[in-house]
Each structure stands twice: as structure tokens, then as C-alpha cells.
């Protein structure tokens, strides 16, 4: 087992439902995982697999009134966040757990300068200092995220900055209160590839400097390979495979993970048609009784359709590498 920091965050059997006219959608349906200090944990999965909903549930900012966290525990330092009062929870957001959203273009308030928005983040968490001192701190944070000429940038409005620069500012706001955990929900999807690489390197550097833990939500395996130590693969609201990134890449054990990795196009091999996974993910209001991937799985048999598989150790022998697939029972 690799070297691990202290256990920071533990999600235990989390269920988040969306109540809609079509019925109750089980967006997150029994998700459990641990996040250790200083590590980067990746979550991959298709759109609608429950990745973002899991993240929002941890911070308890699910879209009300449709979404409801119905079951489970989210333990931070052994305290259940789901049992905290709204006020306690509000104070914890940004201070202990910060979040970086998908689109930097829209996650900054257009009518305030960058400096004011960082100062505000500091003020929310009770930093009562004169404005000038907070502004100096804002400049410092901007420098930390490698924004050039931060003394000038604090006076700029969001529309005067490029997308990559804005995402750095969003990162700076997330970093400003020195949180222990950052949840990044596809922070690079709206950036172009070179800026993406820069930003990921920045996140890595920041993590090394501050030792924070990161929960990184993405659907880009390239980013996972570069950034994460451990990986969770989600499908239809559940984690189907989890383990160290290398182990999963070397030997994906769930057919879904195999199919996902198989559909990543390679530069070296020319193909006439890109590989895709046949069929559609199941409707969340009408989940199959057994394994949720069974209708699309080339190996599915009777048992798969009847009962949801428990977690089995992967045949690669790595104790942390587990997957929920009946086929692994025979191997084990």
C-alpha cells in the first residue's frame, strides 16, 4: 500500500435523490470513498453518472428543492457534515472545503473587480482587517496562482481577462482561505489544451506547496493520468471501480472501465471510426434490478441481470483495487 496521509474526508453510503415529475431519480445511490490528506482523488464517469451531485452533496449545496440527500454520512475529522446546522455548514464552505466550478467565464461576478471578489471571500470567513491589508493578501494569493502583475490585476474586471486567467482567479479565491480540501468540478473543460496543461501543473504545484487534498471530477482520462493518485469510476450513481490510477489503467477490471478506456482515441493508431460504448446509460428513475451496466455489457449473464454485484478484489493483486462485477468472483 502506498504512503498515505491522514484520513480527511470519508463519504459513507451517500444517497442523493432528485424528485422530479418523472419520478425519483437516484442520482447518487450509495457512494462511499475516503480522501486522504495531500492526495488527489479523481472521479470519472459519463454525464449524469452522479459525479457532480456527489460533490455538491458533500458541501450540501444540491439544487433545492428538487434534490434531497436522503441517506449516508459525510465525515470531516470524524464529524458528520450532514448533521450540521445550515449556519455551521455555511461557515465551513470555502474555509475547510473549497470548490472550483466548471466554467470560469461565468463564476466571477461581472460587476466587481478581481481584487474585491478575493477580498470578499476573505471577509466571508471573518477576516476583519482593513481593506488595504486584505487587498495585499489578495495580491499575494494571485501571485501564488501565478497571475502576472497581480498589483494591476486586482483592479481589473472579469471581462478584461482571458479564460485561463479567470480560472486562475477562481483558483485563487478557492485557495484564499487555505482550505484543506478542494473539490474541482471539471475545472478545465472550458479551457483550451495548452492552458489546460498549464492550469493542471499549477494545481499540482499548489498541492505540493500547501498539502491540500483534491477531489478532481473529470471525464478526461489524460488529466486523471497526469494528476490523480487514486481513481473512482462512477456509473449510474454508483462507484463501479476504484483503486490506484496505475492499477486501473494497467488492468481495468470492470467492463465499463474497460469500455471507457477503450474509447479513448490514440494518436498512434489510426482508426476509421472512433470506438464508443453501445447503448445508453440507464434511466435513473427506472434502474435495472441487477448490475446497472448489464444492458450494455458484452459479458452480462443471468446473474448480472438479477443482483447487483458486491465489490471484488481485482485480479491484479493490488489490495486497493476493487470493482463491482460478478466476473471477478470466479477469478478471485
Amino acid at each position, binding site marked *: 500500500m502506498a504512503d498515505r496521509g491522514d484520513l480527511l474526508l470519508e463519504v459513507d453510503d451517500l444517497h442523493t435523490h432528485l424528485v422530479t415529475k418523472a419520478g425519483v431519480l437516484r442520482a447518487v445511490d450509495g457512494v462511499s470513498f475516503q480522501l486522504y490528506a495531500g492526495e488527489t482523488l479523481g472521479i470519472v464517469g459519463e454525464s449524469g453518472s452522479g459525479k457532480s451531485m456527489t460533490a455538491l452533496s458533500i458541501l450540501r449545496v444540491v439544487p433545492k428543492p428538487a434534490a434531497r440527500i436522503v441517506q449516508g454520512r459525510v465525515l470531516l475529522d470524524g464529524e458528520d457534515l450532514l448533521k450540521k446546522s445550515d449556519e455551521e455548514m455555511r461557515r465551513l*464552505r470555502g474555509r475547510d472545503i473549497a470548490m472550483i466550478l466548471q466554467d470560469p467565464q461565468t463564476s466571477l461576478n461581472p*460587476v466587481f473587480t478581481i481584487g474585491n471578489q478575493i477580498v470578499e471571500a476573505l471577509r466571508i*470567513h471573518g477576516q476583519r482587517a482593513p481593506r488595504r491589508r486584505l487587498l495585499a493578501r489578495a495580491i499575494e494569493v494571485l501571485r501564488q496562482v501565478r497571475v502576472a502583475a497581480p498589483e494591476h490585476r486586482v483592479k481589473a474586471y472579469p471581462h478584461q481577462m482571458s479564460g485561463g486567467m479567470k480560472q486562475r482567479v477562481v483558483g485563487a479565491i478557492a485557495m484564499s482561505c487555505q482550505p484543506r480540501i478542494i473539490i474541482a468540478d471539471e475545472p478545465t473543460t472550458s479551457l483550451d489544451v495548452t492552458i489546460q496543461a498549464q492550469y493542471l501543473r499549477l494545481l499540482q504545484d499548489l498541492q505540493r506547496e500547501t498539502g491540500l487534498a483534491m477531489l478532481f471530477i473529470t471525464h478526461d482520462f489524460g488529466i486523471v493520468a497526469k494528476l490523480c493518485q487514486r481513481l473512482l469510476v462512477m456509473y449510474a450513481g454508483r462507484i463501479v471501480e476504484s483503486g490506484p490510477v496505475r492499477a486501473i489503467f494497467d488492468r481495468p477490471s470492470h467492463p465499463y472501465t474497460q469500455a471507457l478506456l477503450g474509447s479513448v482515441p490514440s494518436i498512434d493508431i489510426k482508426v476509421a471510426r472512433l470506438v464508443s460504448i453501445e447503448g445508453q446509460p440507464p434511466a435513473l428513475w427506472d434502474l435495472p434490478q441487477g448490475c446497472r451496466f448489464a444492458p450494455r455489457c458484452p459479458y452480462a449473464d443471468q446473474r448480472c441481470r438479477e443482483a447487483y454485484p458486491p465489490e471484488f478484489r481485482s485480479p491484479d493483486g493490488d489490495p486497493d483495487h476493487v470493482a463491482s462485477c460478478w466476473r471477478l468472483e470466479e477469478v478471485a
Partner: protein
Amino acid sequence: MATREAGLPPAAPAAAADAGASTRRRGWLRRYPVLPMVVLMAVLFVPALFSDWLAPHDPYQSYLRNRLQPPVFWGGTWEFVLGTDRLGRCVLSRIMYGARYALAISLVGIVLGAVIGTALGLIAGYLRGWTDIVAMRLVDISLALPSVLLALALAAAWGPSFQAVIIVVAFVLWAYFARQVRAEVLSLRERDFVARARVAGASNGRIIWRHIFPNVVNTVVVMATLQIGVVILLEASLSFLGIGVPRPTPAWGLLVADGRQLVVSAWWISMFPGVAILLTVLSVNLLGDWLRDRLDPKLRQV
């Protein structure tokens, strides 16, 4: 009209928008709506503030020997530049004092309406649910009630008064503000910067006040400016109908009403207050248009 003669396009917004060479060449004359500002100053602000010194006569004083005197260019005298009314009161002085009422009613009424409407719109739009439903039904009720009817009721209850007019104005306006603000909040609350503020631990009050309100302030200011014209017209029509500001207060609408029986022979009694209303409303609207373009944060510089 005056606008044409001056050879200046009244609306500077077009000029404000295309920056660069043309702006530099024509300078401030192009960048600011100078003509509407000057007209407003001359017709509304200066008379409202300084009529005690500027007006040639007491607006309530009758000069019975000089009744129905025409304006100076229509065969009258310089003593009564814009002529006199049936009771021999100086039309110019009455218009100048009337500016006070126009200004006071529009300022107080609009501020009241805007504050109430904006607050309700912000809360309703942000909280949604029951608060929203109740607030919006109130808006519907308010919009369904004819303002004249309301003024009539108030006038019947308390007698026509200055305060009643202000209440009517606020009552008519708040619903428009509430509805407009709510609509904008509905879209703003889904924006990512609100979500970001939430995950950063900002409270509801803080999000509404610090993040959403500054984004609707432009709309509110522009709406308020554009309402000045509406309010002056409303005040004028209420006074004209006798349910607004009571006589003999020289409110502009009353002045128009006073001259209506003599409009063929002594046209100046109604005409000049009418022109004052027209100029004020027109300039205020042009100014409002300019403000709307000007307050776009995209055009704001560091």
C-alpha cells in the same frame, strides 16, 4: 423642434458606443447628452430650486387688471412674459413653482416605488417558492388596479393631497420594479458566480445584497430614470382630473387643466405648462436611454 435647430443628435448613446476617433474629435459634446441635460436644468431643476429668486411674480398672486394677458410675443408685456391666466396670475411663475411639485413627486414617489419593488423582487426571485408566489400575485393585483381608480379612492378618503399623489405613484410603480427585478434575479441566481459564492460560504443575505443586487442596480437606475416621465404625466393627469394635487397649487397638470375652457382664445394658459411637461419627459427619457448604454459594465473601464 429645438432639438433639430441645435444641430445635435439628442441621443448621445450612439456616440458613446462608437468609441475612438469620433469621440476624440467631438469630445464631451458627443460623449454626454448635453442638450437633454441643459433642457432638464432649465425646465426642471433650476426652477424647482431657485424659483423664489427667479420667478417674476408670486404664483398665487392675482393681478385682476391683467387677466388673460397674452405672452409677450403675442402682443403682451414684458411684465408677464408668458401671459396670465383667468385670475391674472403669472403663467411663467406658476410653471416655475410647478417644477417643484413635479420634481418632488417624481423623486419621492419613484424612490419609494423602486425601493419597495426592488426589495420584493430580489427576495421573491432569489428565494422562489411561496415567497415568490405571494409577491407575484401582489404584483398582479397592483397591475390590475387602474391607477386613476386608486387615486380616486384615496382622494375620496383623505381629500386630494400632495401625499396621496406620492402614494399613488409609489403604488403604481413598485409592481413594475418588482416584476423586472425578479425576472433578472431568476436568471442571475442560476449563474455560476452565485453558485461560487454559495460554495465559498456566503449567506443568502450576502448573496442577494453583494452579488445579485449590484447586477440589477443598472436596470433599476435606468428604469427609475425612465419612470420620471411616466410619473410627471401621471401626476399631470391626476391633477387634471382634480384628484391629484389640490388647487391652487401650481402643479403642471393643474395648470393645463385650468386653461382647457379657454384653450381657443387664451391658449397660452394650457400650452406653456404642456410644453414644460413635454420637454421634461422627453429629456428625461433621452437621458435614461443614455444611462442605460452607459451603465453596461462591459463598457466600464478600470
